Protein backbone atom coordinates (compact mmCIF):
# COMPACT_ATOMS: atom_id res chain seq x y z
CA UNK A 1 0.00 0.00 0.00
CA UNK A 2 2.78 2.38 1.03
CA UNK A 3 4.66 1.53 -2.14
CA UNK A 4 1.62 2.17 -4.31
CA UNK A 5 1.07 5.60 -2.80
CA UNK A 6 4.72 6.56 -3.28
CA UNK A 7 4.44 5.52 -6.91
CA UNK A 8 1.32 7.65 -7.40
CA UNK A 9 2.99 10.68 -5.86
CA UNK A 10 5.92 10.17 -8.18
CA UNK A 11 3.56 9.96 -11.18
CA UNK A 12 1.83 13.20 -10.22
CA UNK A 13 5.13 15.01 -9.78
CA UNK A 14 6.06 13.91 -13.30
CA UNK A 15 2.57 14.90 -14.50
CA UNK A 16 2.85 18.43 -13.13
CA UNK A 17 6.43 18.78 -14.33
CA UNK A 18 5.46 17.74 -17.86
CA UNK A 19 2.39 19.96 -17.97
CA UNK A 20 4.32 23.00 -16.75
CA UNK A 21 7.23 22.37 -19.12
CA UNK A 22 4.95 22.03 -22.13
CA UNK A 23 2.66 24.94 -21.31
CA UNK A 24 5.24 27.44 -20.04
CA UNK A 25 6.49 28.84 -23.41
CA UNK A 26 2.92 29.01 -24.66
CA UNK A 27 1.72 30.76 -21.51
CA UNK A 28 4.56 33.23 -21.61
CA UNK A 29 3.90 34.08 -25.25
CA UNK A 30 0.27 34.69 -24.40
CA UNK A 31 1.41 36.88 -21.52
CA UNK A 32 3.74 38.93 -23.74
CA UNK A 33 0.97 39.37 -26.30
CA UNK A 34 -1.07 41.18 -23.66
CA UNK A 35 1.70 43.46 -22.44
CA UNK A 36 2.83 46.90 -23.56
CA UNK A 37 6.32 47.36 -24.95
CA UNK A 38 7.55 49.33 -21.96
CA UNK A 39 6.26 46.94 -19.31
CA UNK A 40 8.21 44.12 -20.97
CA UNK A 41 11.59 45.60 -20.22
CA UNK A 42 10.96 45.70 -16.52
CA UNK A 43 11.13 42.70 -14.22
CA UNK A 44 9.20 39.79 -15.78
CA UNK A 45 5.75 39.46 -14.22
CA UNK A 46 4.45 35.88 -14.44
CA UNK A 47 0.73 36.67 -14.58
CA UNK A 48 -1.55 38.62 -16.89
CA UNK A 49 -1.93 42.21 -15.71
CA UNK A 50 -3.97 43.76 -18.48
CA UNK A 51 -4.84 43.35 -22.10
CA UNK A 52 -3.27 45.48 -24.81
CA UNK A 53 -5.71 45.12 -27.70
CA UNK A 54 -3.39 47.01 -30.05
CA UNK A 55 -0.99 44.06 -30.15
CA UNK A 56 -3.71 42.08 -31.89
CA UNK A 57 -5.62 44.79 -33.72
CA UNK A 58 -2.67 46.62 -35.27
CA UNK A 59 -1.09 43.72 -37.22
CA UNK A 60 -4.37 42.13 -38.26
CA UNK A 61 -6.51 45.17 -38.96
CA UNK A 62 -4.20 48.00 -39.99
CA UNK A 63 -1.17 45.98 -41.12
CA UNK A 64 -1.21 43.21 -43.72
CA UNK A 65 -1.60 40.25 -41.40
CA UNK A 66 -5.31 39.83 -42.04
CA UNK A 67 -4.43 39.20 -45.68
CA UNK A 68 -1.75 36.71 -44.68
CA UNK A 69 -4.32 34.77 -42.68
CA UNK A 70 -6.62 34.68 -45.69
CA UNK A 71 -3.76 33.48 -47.92
CA UNK A 72 -2.90 30.72 -45.46
CA UNK A 73 -6.55 29.69 -45.35
CA UNK A 74 -6.86 29.56 -49.16
CA UNK A 75 -3.59 27.68 -49.61
CA UNK A 76 -4.15 25.15 -46.82
CA UNK A 77 -7.74 24.40 -47.87
CA UNK A 78 -6.89 24.27 -51.57
CA UNK A 79 -3.98 21.95 -50.91
CA UNK A 80 -6.05 19.64 -48.71
CA UNK A 81 -8.76 19.41 -51.40
CA UNK A 82 -6.28 18.76 -54.21
CA UNK A 83 -4.29 16.20 -52.24
CA UNK A 84 -7.42 14.24 -51.31
CA UNK A 85 -8.72 14.28 -54.88
CA UNK A 86 -5.42 12.78 -56.06
CA UNK A 87 -4.53 10.56 -53.13
CA UNK A 88 -7.79 8.63 -52.76
CA UNK A 89 -7.69 7.07 -56.25
CA UNK A 90 -3.93 6.58 -55.99
CA UNK A 91 -4.16 4.77 -52.65
CA UNK A 92 -7.03 2.67 -54.02
CA UNK A 93 -4.94 1.71 -57.04
CA UNK A 94 -1.95 0.75 -54.89
CA UNK A 95 -4.13 -1.33 -52.56
CA UNK A 96 -6.36 -3.16 -54.98
CA UNK A 97 -4.58 -3.41 -58.33
CA UNK A 98 -1.64 -5.51 -59.38
CA UNK A 99 0.97 -2.89 -60.08
CA UNK A 100 4.51 -3.92 -60.83
CA UNK A 101 7.11 -2.25 -58.64
CA UNK A 102 4.71 -1.40 -55.81
CA UNK A 103 7.50 -1.70 -53.25
CA UNK A 104 9.57 0.79 -55.20
CA UNK A 105 6.66 3.19 -55.35
CA UNK A 106 6.29 2.96 -51.58
CA UNK A 107 9.98 3.48 -50.97
CA UNK A 108 9.88 6.45 -53.28
CA UNK A 109 6.82 7.88 -51.47
CA UNK A 110 8.43 7.62 -48.06
CA UNK A 111 11.75 9.05 -49.24
CA UNK A 112 9.85 11.91 -50.79
CA UNK A 113 8.22 12.61 -47.47
CA UNK A 114 11.52 12.46 -45.58
CA UNK A 115 13.58 14.55 -48.01
CA UNK A 116 14.88 17.88 -46.72
CA UNK A 117 12.63 20.60 -48.18
CA UNK A 118 15.70 22.80 -48.54
CA UNK A 119 17.02 20.57 -51.32
CA UNK A 120 14.00 21.39 -53.51
CA UNK A 121 14.42 25.14 -53.15
CA UNK A 122 16.67 25.74 -56.17
CA UNK A 123 14.71 23.86 -58.85
CA UNK A 124 11.35 25.07 -57.50
CA UNK A 125 12.55 28.65 -57.39
CA UNK A 126 13.72 28.41 -60.99
CA UNK A 127 10.51 26.74 -62.20
CA UNK A 128 8.34 29.21 -60.32
CA UNK A 129 10.17 32.25 -61.58
CA UNK A 130 9.70 31.06 -65.17
CA UNK A 131 13.33 30.51 -66.04
CA UNK A 132 12.82 26.81 -66.85
CA UNK A 133 9.54 26.78 -68.74
CA UNK A 134 8.93 30.16 -70.28
CA UNK A 135 5.32 31.18 -69.82
CA UNK A 136 4.77 29.34 -66.54
CA UNK A 137 4.88 31.84 -63.73
CA UNK A 138 3.80 30.43 -60.41
CA UNK A 139 5.88 32.70 -58.22
CA UNK A 140 3.82 34.38 -55.52
CA UNK A 141 0.52 32.75 -56.51
CA UNK A 142 -1.92 30.71 -54.45
CA UNK A 143 -2.01 28.00 -57.11
CA UNK A 144 1.76 27.65 -56.97
CA UNK A 145 1.76 27.11 -53.22
CA UNK A 146 -1.17 24.68 -53.45
CA UNK A 147 0.81 22.64 -55.98
CA UNK A 148 4.12 22.85 -54.15
CA UNK A 149 2.77 21.47 -50.88
CA UNK A 150 1.81 18.30 -52.78
CA UNK A 151 5.50 17.30 -52.70
CA UNK A 152 5.25 16.27 -49.08
CA UNK A 153 1.52 16.02 -48.44
CA UNK A 154 0.59 13.78 -51.36
CA UNK A 155 2.97 10.92 -50.47
CA UNK A 156 1.92 11.30 -46.86
CA UNK A 157 -1.79 11.11 -47.70
CA UNK A 158 -1.32 8.11 -49.97
CA UNK A 159 0.66 6.35 -47.28
CA UNK A 160 -1.95 7.02 -44.61
CA UNK A 161 -4.96 6.18 -46.79
CA UNK A 162 -3.30 3.03 -48.07
CA UNK A 163 -3.17 1.65 -44.52
CA UNK A 164 -6.84 2.48 -44.08
CA UNK A 165 -8.07 1.09 -47.40
CA UNK A 166 -6.09 -2.12 -46.77
CA UNK A 167 -8.24 -2.60 -43.67
CA UNK A 168 -11.44 -2.69 -45.78
CA UNK A 169 -12.25 -6.32 -46.69
CA UNK A 170 -11.65 -7.07 -50.38
CA UNK A 171 -14.84 -9.21 -50.39
CA UNK A 172 -16.87 -5.98 -50.43
CA UNK A 173 -15.25 -4.95 -53.70
CA UNK A 174 -15.54 -8.39 -55.20
CA UNK A 175 -19.26 -8.58 -54.44
CA UNK A 176 -19.67 -5.25 -56.20
CA UNK A 177 -17.71 -6.47 -59.23
CA UNK A 178 -20.04 -9.48 -59.48
CA UNK A 179 -22.98 -7.07 -59.39
CA UNK A 180 -21.49 -5.30 -62.41
CA UNK A 181 -20.09 -2.26 -60.66
CA UNK A 182 -17.21 -0.42 -62.34
CA UNK A 183 -13.97 0.31 -60.47
CA UNK A 184 -14.83 3.97 -60.30
CA UNK A 185 -18.19 2.94 -58.87
CA UNK A 186 -16.49 0.77 -56.23
CA UNK A 187 -14.28 3.67 -55.25
CA UNK A 188 -17.21 6.06 -55.07
CA UNK A 189 -19.86 3.80 -53.53
CA UNK A 190 -17.82 1.50 -51.27
CA UNK A 191 -14.31 2.71 -50.49
CA UNK A 192 -15.03 6.39 -49.89
CA UNK A 193 -18.11 5.89 -47.66
CA UNK A 194 -16.39 3.19 -45.59
CA UNK A 195 -13.14 5.14 -45.27
CA UNK A 196 -14.85 8.49 -44.65
CA UNK A 197 -13.57 8.98 -41.07
CA UNK A 198 -10.00 8.18 -42.14
CA UNK A 199 -10.30 10.55 -45.09
CA UNK A 200 -11.44 13.30 -42.73
CA UNK A 201 -8.44 12.68 -40.45
CA UNK A 202 -6.07 12.77 -43.43
CA UNK A 203 -7.63 16.04 -44.60
CA UNK A 204 -7.21 17.61 -41.17
CA UNK A 205 -3.54 16.62 -40.93
CA UNK A 206 -2.72 17.83 -44.44
CA UNK A 207 -4.49 21.09 -43.83
CA UNK A 208 -2.41 21.56 -40.70
CA UNK A 209 0.90 20.73 -42.44
CA UNK A 210 0.17 23.30 -45.15
CA UNK A 211 -0.83 25.89 -42.60
CA UNK A 212 2.35 25.33 -40.58
CA UNK A 213 4.87 25.28 -43.44
CA UNK A 214 7.30 28.18 -43.65
CA UNK A 215 10.38 27.49 -45.80
CA UNK A 216 8.69 27.18 -49.22
CA UNK A 217 6.28 29.96 -48.39
CA UNK A 218 9.08 32.34 -47.47
CA UNK A 219 11.05 31.66 -50.67
CA UNK A 220 8.25 31.21 -53.21
CA UNK A 221 5.87 33.98 -52.19
CA UNK A 222 6.34 37.71 -52.12
CA UNK A 223 3.48 40.07 -51.48
CA UNK A 224 0.32 38.52 -52.92
CA UNK A 225 0.42 35.00 -51.50
CA UNK A 226 2.38 35.48 -48.29
CA UNK A 227 1.22 33.14 -45.56
CA UNK A 228 0.86 33.75 -41.84
CA UNK A 229 4.00 31.75 -41.05
CA UNK A 230 6.03 34.16 -43.23
CA UNK A 231 4.35 36.91 -41.27
CA UNK A 232 5.63 35.48 -37.99
CA UNK A 233 9.13 35.33 -39.45
CA UNK A 234 9.00 38.96 -40.59
CA UNK A 235 9.05 40.12 -37.01
CA UNK A 236 12.18 38.14 -36.33
CA UNK A 237 14.30 39.35 -39.20
CA UNK A 238 13.41 43.02 -38.97
CA UNK A 239 15.64 45.03 -36.65
CA UNK A 240 14.01 45.83 -33.33
CA UNK A 241 11.41 43.19 -32.59
CA UNK A 242 7.97 44.36 -31.58
CA UNK A 243 7.54 41.72 -28.92
CA UNK A 244 3.88 42.18 -28.13
CA UNK A 245 2.80 42.03 -31.75
CA UNK A 246 5.09 39.13 -32.59
CA UNK A 247 3.64 37.17 -29.68
CA UNK A 248 0.10 38.08 -30.75
CA UNK A 249 0.68 36.95 -34.35
CA UNK A 250 2.27 33.70 -33.12
CA UNK A 251 -0.72 33.03 -30.90
CA UNK A 252 -3.16 33.60 -33.77
CA UNK A 253 -1.03 31.34 -35.97
CA UNK A 254 -1.41 28.60 -33.35
CA UNK A 255 -5.21 28.82 -33.02
CA UNK A 256 -5.98 26.25 -35.76
CA UNK A 257 -3.51 23.84 -34.16
CA UNK A 258 -5.27 24.20 -30.81
CA UNK A 259 -8.68 23.62 -32.39
CA UNK A 260 -7.47 20.58 -34.32
CA UNK A 261 -5.89 19.09 -31.21
CA UNK A 262 -9.33 19.36 -29.66
CA UNK A 263 -11.03 17.72 -32.63
CA UNK A 264 -8.56 15.09 -33.82
CA UNK A 265 -6.25 14.61 -30.85
CA UNK A 266 -6.12 10.83 -31.09
CA UNK A 267 -5.15 10.83 -34.74
CA UNK A 268 -2.29 13.32 -34.61
CA UNK A 269 0.25 10.86 -33.19
CA UNK A 270 -0.96 8.11 -35.52
CA UNK A 271 -0.66 10.51 -38.43
CA UNK A 272 2.78 11.80 -37.54
CA UNK A 273 4.09 8.24 -37.32
CA UNK A 274 2.61 7.27 -40.73
CA UNK A 275 0.03 5.09 -39.08
CA UNK A 276 2.75 2.97 -37.46
CA UNK A 277 1.45 3.90 -34.02
CA UNK A 278 -2.21 3.44 -33.25
CA UNK A 279 -3.76 4.82 -30.11
Amino acid at each position, binding site marked *: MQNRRAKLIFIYI*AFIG*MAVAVLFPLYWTLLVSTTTKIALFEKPIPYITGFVVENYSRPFLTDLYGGYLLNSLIIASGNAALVLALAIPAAY*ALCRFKIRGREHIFFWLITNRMAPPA*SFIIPLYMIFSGSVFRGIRLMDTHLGMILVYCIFNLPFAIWLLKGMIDAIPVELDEAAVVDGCSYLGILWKIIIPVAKPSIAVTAVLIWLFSWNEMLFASVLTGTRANTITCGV*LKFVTVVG*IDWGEMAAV*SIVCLIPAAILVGVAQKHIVAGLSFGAVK*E
Partner: protein
Amino acid sequence: MHGTELKGWGFLSPTLVVLGFVGIFPFVYVLYLSLFYYNIFSLRGMVYVGINNFRKLMNDPKFMSALSKGLLFVMVTCGVEITLGLAIALLLSKKFVGRGVLRTIMTLPLAMAPVAIGSMWIVITRPAVGPVSYWLGKLGISYDISESALQAFFTTVIMDVWHWTPFVILAFLAGLTSLPREPMEAARVDGAGPWQTFRHVIFPLMRPILVTIVFIRIMDTFRIYDEVWALTSGGPGTATKYVSIHLVRMVLARQEYGYGASMSVFLLYLTIVMCWVLLNLITRVKREVYAE
Protein backbone atom coordinates in the same frame (compact mmCIF):
# COMPACT_ATOMS: atom_id res chain seq x y z
CA MET B 1 -6.21 -7.65 -54.94
CA HIS B 2 -8.06 -7.46 -58.24
CA GLY B 3 -8.18 -5.49 -61.44
CA THR B 4 -5.84 -5.11 -64.32
CA GLU B 5 -2.57 -3.27 -64.16
CA LEU B 6 -3.62 -0.75 -66.81
CA LYS B 7 -6.67 0.42 -64.87
CA GLY B 8 -4.55 0.69 -61.73
CA TRP B 9 -2.17 3.02 -63.51
CA GLY B 10 -5.21 4.96 -64.64
CA PHE B 11 -6.10 5.70 -61.03
CA LEU B 12 -2.49 6.53 -60.26
CA SER B 13 -1.85 8.79 -63.22
CA PRO B 14 -3.22 12.12 -61.89
CA THR B 15 -0.96 11.73 -58.85
CA LEU B 16 2.01 10.90 -61.05
CA VAL B 17 1.39 13.99 -63.19
CA VAL B 18 1.32 16.33 -60.18
CA LEU B 19 4.23 14.65 -58.39
CA GLY B 20 6.07 14.59 -61.69
CA PHE B 21 5.76 18.34 -61.96
CA VAL B 22 6.57 19.30 -58.35
CA GLY B 23 8.67 16.30 -57.28
CA ILE B 24 10.32 14.31 -60.04
CA PHE B 25 11.06 17.11 -62.47
CA PRO B 26 12.71 19.29 -59.79
CA PHE B 27 14.73 16.25 -58.74
CA VAL B 28 15.97 15.61 -62.28
CA TYR B 29 16.56 19.32 -62.80
CA VAL B 30 18.63 19.63 -59.65
CA LEU B 31 20.73 16.65 -60.80
CA TYR B 32 21.28 18.41 -64.12
CA LEU B 33 22.10 21.77 -62.51
CA SER B 34 24.60 20.17 -60.15
CA LEU B 35 26.88 19.57 -63.14
CA PHE B 36 27.11 23.26 -64.01
CA TYR B 37 28.73 26.38 -62.73
CA TYR B 38 25.75 28.70 -62.54
CA ASN B 39 25.66 31.95 -60.65
CA ILE B 40 22.97 34.52 -61.47
CA PHE B 41 25.39 37.38 -60.84
CA SER B 42 28.04 35.93 -63.12
CA LEU B 43 28.27 36.98 -66.76
CA ARG B 44 29.45 33.55 -67.81
CA GLY B 45 26.00 31.97 -67.64
CA MET B 46 25.83 28.21 -67.30
CA VAL B 47 29.15 26.48 -67.71
CA TYR B 48 29.43 22.69 -67.72
CA VAL B 49 31.88 21.60 -65.03
CA GLY B 50 31.07 17.90 -64.62
CA ILE B 51 31.60 16.58 -61.11
CA ASN B 52 33.75 19.53 -60.04
CA ASN B 53 30.96 20.91 -57.86
CA PHE B 54 30.98 17.70 -55.84
CA ARG B 55 34.74 17.76 -55.59
CA LYS B 56 34.51 21.31 -54.27
CA LEU B 57 31.74 20.27 -51.88
CA MET B 58 33.85 17.53 -50.31
CA ASN B 59 36.59 20.05 -49.62
CA ASP B 60 34.34 22.86 -48.47
CA PRO B 61 35.03 23.42 -44.75
CA LYS B 62 31.88 25.51 -44.34
CA PHE B 63 29.66 22.79 -45.74
CA MET B 64 31.40 20.06 -43.80
CA SER B 65 31.04 22.05 -40.59
CA ALA B 66 27.32 22.62 -41.28
CA LEU B 67 26.88 18.92 -42.01
CA SER B 68 28.71 17.80 -38.88
CA LYS B 69 26.81 20.31 -36.75
CA GLY B 70 23.58 19.04 -38.24
CA LEU B 71 24.54 15.44 -37.50
CA LEU B 72 25.63 16.33 -33.96
CA PHE B 73 22.27 18.01 -33.49
CA VAL B 74 20.53 14.86 -34.75
CA MET B 75 22.48 12.61 -32.38
CA VAL B 76 22.08 14.73 -29.25
CA THR B 77 18.42 15.55 -29.87
CA CYS B 78 17.35 12.02 -30.78
CA GLY B 79 19.33 10.54 -27.90
CA VAL B 80 17.69 12.81 -25.36
CA GLU B 81 14.20 12.49 -26.86
CA ILE B 82 14.21 8.70 -27.07
CA THR B 83 15.63 8.14 -23.55
CA LEU B 84 13.45 10.75 -21.92
CA GLY B 85 10.40 9.70 -23.92
CA LEU B 86 10.78 6.04 -23.03
CA ALA B 87 11.32 6.78 -19.33
CA ILE B 88 8.31 9.07 -19.07
CA ALA B 89 6.13 6.70 -21.09
CA LEU B 90 6.97 3.84 -18.70
CA LEU B 91 6.13 6.06 -15.75
CA LEU B 92 2.84 7.21 -17.22
CA SER B 93 1.74 3.79 -18.45
CA LYS B 94 -0.07 3.21 -15.14
CA LYS B 95 -3.66 4.38 -15.05
CA PHE B 96 -4.21 7.57 -13.09
CA VAL B 97 -6.74 10.37 -12.87
CA GLY B 98 -5.96 13.16 -15.31
CA ARG B 99 -4.14 11.06 -17.88
CA GLY B 100 -6.46 12.30 -20.62
CA VAL B 101 -5.71 15.92 -19.73
CA LEU B 102 -1.97 15.30 -19.85
CA ARG B 103 -2.37 13.58 -23.19
CA THR B 104 -4.14 16.62 -24.61
CA ILE B 105 -1.46 18.95 -23.25
CA MET B 106 1.27 16.82 -24.78
CA THR B 107 -0.41 16.71 -28.19
CA LEU B 108 -0.46 20.50 -28.35
CA PRO B 109 3.19 21.10 -29.39
CA LEU B 110 2.92 18.45 -32.11
CA ALA B 111 0.34 20.43 -34.01
CA MET B 112 2.03 23.81 -33.75
CA ALA B 113 3.73 25.67 -36.56
CA PRO B 114 7.51 25.28 -36.10
CA VAL B 115 8.12 28.92 -36.93
CA ALA B 116 5.69 29.99 -34.20
CA ILE B 117 7.54 27.72 -31.79
CA GLY B 118 10.77 29.46 -32.78
CA SER B 119 9.23 32.84 -32.05
CA MET B 120 7.84 31.60 -28.73
CA TRP B 121 11.33 30.54 -27.75
CA ILE B 122 12.71 33.92 -28.77
CA VAL B 123 10.20 35.51 -26.45
CA ILE B 124 11.29 33.43 -23.49
CA THR B 125 15.06 33.40 -24.11
CA ARG B 126 15.92 36.90 -25.36
CA PRO B 127 17.84 38.93 -22.75
CA ALA B 128 16.08 42.02 -21.39
CA VAL B 129 12.71 40.48 -22.23
CA GLY B 130 12.71 36.77 -21.63
CA PRO B 131 12.17 35.24 -18.21
CA VAL B 132 14.76 32.50 -18.74
CA SER B 133 17.71 34.85 -19.05
CA TYR B 134 16.32 36.99 -16.22
CA TRP B 135 16.00 34.09 -13.79
CA LEU B 136 19.30 32.55 -14.82
CA GLY B 137 20.86 35.96 -14.33
CA LYS B 138 19.54 35.96 -10.77
CA LEU B 139 21.39 32.69 -10.26
CA GLY B 140 24.55 34.28 -11.56
CA ILE B 141 24.55 32.57 -14.95
CA SER B 142 24.80 34.87 -17.92
CA TYR B 143 22.61 33.47 -20.64
CA ASP B 144 22.51 34.97 -24.10
CA ILE B 145 22.03 32.81 -27.16
CA SER B 146 23.12 35.60 -29.47
CA GLU B 147 26.55 35.55 -27.80
CA SER B 148 27.38 32.05 -26.65
CA ALA B 149 27.66 29.36 -29.31
CA LEU B 150 27.34 26.54 -26.81
CA GLN B 151 24.23 28.01 -25.22
CA ALA B 152 22.70 28.58 -28.65
CA PHE B 153 23.34 24.97 -29.64
CA PHE B 154 21.82 23.58 -26.47
CA THR B 155 18.87 25.96 -26.66
CA THR B 156 18.02 24.61 -30.12
CA VAL B 157 18.37 21.08 -28.71
CA ILE B 158 16.08 21.89 -25.79
CA MET B 159 13.58 23.53 -28.11
CA ASP B 160 13.42 20.43 -30.29
CA VAL B 161 13.23 18.21 -27.22
CA TRP B 162 10.37 20.37 -25.97
CA HIS B 163 8.64 20.14 -29.34
CA TRP B 164 8.99 16.42 -30.05
CA THR B 165 9.48 14.47 -26.78
CA PRO B 166 5.68 14.49 -26.29
CA PHE B 167 5.38 12.69 -29.63
CA VAL B 168 7.89 10.06 -28.52
CA ILE B 169 6.09 9.66 -25.19
CA LEU B 170 2.66 9.28 -26.79
CA ALA B 171 3.95 6.86 -29.40
CA PHE B 172 5.65 4.71 -26.77
CA LEU B 173 2.53 4.84 -24.58
CA ALA B 174 0.45 3.61 -27.49
CA GLY B 175 3.01 0.87 -28.09
CA LEU B 176 3.06 -0.13 -24.42
CA THR B 177 -0.70 -0.46 -24.16
CA SER B 178 -0.87 -2.61 -27.30
CA LEU B 179 1.67 -5.14 -25.98
CA PRO B 180 0.34 -8.61 -25.15
CA ARG B 181 -0.31 -9.00 -21.43
CA GLU B 182 0.60 -12.68 -21.01
CA PRO B 183 4.42 -12.40 -21.13
CA MET B 184 4.35 -9.68 -18.47
CA GLU B 185 2.03 -11.70 -16.24
CA ALA B 186 4.28 -14.71 -16.70
CA ALA B 187 7.35 -12.67 -15.77
CA ARG B 188 5.63 -11.44 -12.63
CA VAL B 189 4.60 -14.95 -11.65
CA ASP B 190 8.22 -16.02 -12.14
CA GLY B 191 9.23 -13.32 -9.65
CA ALA B 192 10.83 -10.78 -11.98
CA GLY B 193 11.19 -7.23 -10.65
CA PRO B 194 10.11 -4.15 -12.63
CA TRP B 195 13.59 -3.60 -14.12
CA GLN B 196 13.98 -7.24 -15.15
CA THR B 197 10.50 -7.24 -16.67
CA PHE B 198 11.41 -4.13 -18.65
CA ARG B 199 14.83 -5.42 -19.72
CA HIS B 200 13.79 -8.92 -20.77
CA VAL B 201 10.11 -8.67 -21.67
CA ILE B 202 8.92 -5.15 -22.48
CA PHE B 203 11.98 -3.82 -24.26
CA PRO B 204 12.38 -6.73 -26.73
CA LEU B 205 8.67 -6.51 -27.60
CA MET B 206 8.95 -2.74 -28.06
CA ARG B 207 11.78 -2.95 -30.57
CA PRO B 208 9.67 -2.50 -33.74
CA ILE B 209 8.07 0.66 -32.43
CA LEU B 210 11.41 1.88 -31.10
CA VAL B 211 13.16 1.64 -34.46
CA THR B 212 10.19 3.24 -36.22
CA ILE B 213 10.26 6.23 -33.88
CA VAL B 214 14.03 6.52 -34.15
CA PHE B 215 13.68 6.54 -37.93
CA ILE B 216 11.06 9.30 -37.90
CA ARG B 217 12.98 11.43 -35.41
CA ILE B 218 16.32 11.09 -37.21
CA MET B 219 14.85 12.12 -40.55
CA ASP B 220 12.93 15.02 -39.01
CA THR B 221 15.81 16.48 -37.04
CA PHE B 222 18.17 16.11 -39.99
CA ARG B 223 16.05 18.38 -42.18
CA ILE B 224 15.15 20.90 -39.46
CA TYR B 225 14.91 24.49 -40.67
CA ASP B 226 11.95 26.59 -39.51
CA GLU B 227 12.33 26.70 -35.73
CA VAL B 228 16.08 27.06 -35.68
CA TRP B 229 16.03 29.73 -38.36
CA ALA B 230 13.37 31.68 -36.46
CA LEU B 231 15.19 31.36 -33.13
CA THR B 232 18.86 31.90 -33.97
CA SER B 233 19.10 32.56 -37.73
CA GLY B 234 21.94 30.03 -37.67
CA GLY B 235 23.99 32.13 -35.29
CA PRO B 236 25.86 33.24 -33.34
CA GLY B 237 28.39 33.05 -36.13
CA THR B 238 27.66 29.66 -37.62
CA ALA B 239 27.01 27.83 -34.35
CA THR B 240 23.50 26.65 -35.22
CA LYS B 241 23.82 26.76 -39.00
CA TYR B 242 22.62 23.22 -39.59
CA VAL B 243 22.82 21.80 -43.04
CA SER B 244 19.40 22.93 -44.38
CA ILE B 245 19.96 26.47 -43.15
CA HIS B 246 23.40 26.54 -44.72
CA LEU B 247 21.98 25.45 -48.07
CA VAL B 248 19.05 27.87 -48.14
CA ARG B 249 21.13 30.84 -47.02
CA MET B 250 23.87 30.13 -49.52
CA VAL B 251 21.39 29.92 -52.37
CA LEU B 252 19.42 33.01 -51.38
CA ALA B 253 22.35 35.22 -50.45
CA ARG B 254 24.89 34.26 -53.10
CA GLN B 255 22.66 32.83 -55.83
CA GLU B 256 25.07 29.94 -56.38
CA TYR B 257 22.59 27.72 -58.21
CA GLY B 258 25.00 25.16 -59.62
CA TYR B 259 26.94 24.65 -56.43
CA GLY B 260 23.77 24.77 -54.34
CA ALA B 261 22.27 22.11 -56.58
CA SER B 262 25.19 19.79 -55.93
CA MET B 263 24.67 20.33 -52.22
CA SER B 264 20.97 19.49 -52.62
CA VAL B 265 21.86 16.32 -54.51
CA PHE B 266 24.23 15.31 -51.75
CA LEU B 267 21.55 15.85 -49.10
CA LEU B 268 19.00 13.89 -51.10
CA TYR B 269 21.52 11.10 -51.53
CA LEU B 270 22.11 11.01 -47.77
CA THR B 271 18.34 10.96 -47.19
CA ILE B 272 17.84 8.04 -49.56
CA VAL B 273 20.68 6.06 -47.98
CA MET B 274 19.41 6.72 -44.45
CA CYS B 275 15.84 5.80 -45.42
CA TRP B 276 17.01 2.61 -47.09
CA VAL B 277 19.16 1.49 -44.16
CA LEU B 278 16.59 2.36 -41.51
CA LEU B 279 13.58 0.94 -43.37
CA ASN B 280 15.46 -2.33 -43.87
CA LEU B 281 16.28 -2.35 -40.18
CA ILE B 282 12.62 -1.83 -39.33
CA THR B 283 11.56 -4.70 -41.58
CA ARG B 284 14.18 -6.98 -40.06
CA VAL B 285 13.31 -6.14 -36.46
CA LYS B 286 9.60 -6.58 -37.16
CA ARG B 287 10.23 -9.97 -38.72
CA GLU B 288 12.34 -11.07 -35.74
CA VAL B 289 9.90 -9.90 -33.08
CA TYR B 290 6.67 -11.05 -34.71
CA ALA B 291 8.14 -14.41 -35.69
CA GLU B 292 8.92 -15.22 -32.07
